[in-house]
């Protein structure tokens, strides 16, 4: 069974967009949580987890759009 199906995502482009959305939403969720916490750990979480997840989601979205045009 493919990873997409195990995660309950659709195959092909639709699934890649879903995965990209989930990654970005998780990254933004972490950003919102750390935004109101003035502590070094919150800076660390934002940098190493939030922006990494959201950035990966954005790259996956761009890659999906480019691949659709192939």
């Amino acid at each position, binding site marked *: 069974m493919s990873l997409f199906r195990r995660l309950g995502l659709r195959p092909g482009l639709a699934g890649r967009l879903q995965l990209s959305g989930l990654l*970005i939403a998780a990254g*933004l969720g972490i950003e919102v949580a750390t935004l109101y916490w003035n502590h070094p750990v919150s800076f660390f979480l934002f940098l190493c987890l939030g922006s990494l997840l959201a950035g990966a*989601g954005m790259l996956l979205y761009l890659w999906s759009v480019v691949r659709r045009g192939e």
Partner: protein
Amino acid sequence: MTGYAISLGFLAVVTIALIGLLVRRPESTGTLGGRILAFLALFVLPGLLLLGGAGRHYEQAKTTRFCLSCHVIQPYGESLHVDHARFLPASHYQNKRIPADRACYTCHTDYTMFGDFDDKVRGVKHVWHNFWGSASEPVELYEPYENRACLECHHGARSYEEQAVHAPFRAQLLRGEKSCLMCHNLVHEVSKLDRFRRWDPEATP
């Protein structure tokens, strides 16, 4: 909490809601409107939010409250309240020679082109060392304290320039060949804090 942080939080919630719509119905990207919505929700808005969030964290990391929220640094914050005229950080803090809400940052940033960025890299290193237990005890600077931080404010100031005791060393201080801390050497002294009285601003008549 500032209006900026509230706006960012609100925009993030709206973006997550839009992403939720796309994740539930990815087939909506088959239309032009759906594709525009996907571009906004999966690229433009997250990009803006990441930039905005980074800016917010960047500014937040300059505050005294941020530095003192780490328990290792708390004694250094305590040293700002020592009642002693020669105690360097305390006399700067208590006489408002540095902004009280950016006390640590003002003296511990290096005023170079990428100084702010270097500070953040150093900050991440602090957290890393503290997390893995490799921090020195007591905390030490990675490099000797540079005069640049002092001269950023004092160079050209009458109180510094007209002091006869500074005159023979002025050029060497400027070149960093002599350290300001050679004479102004009562700094933080966290291991001896219990020997000093504390300044109580409330008790001032």
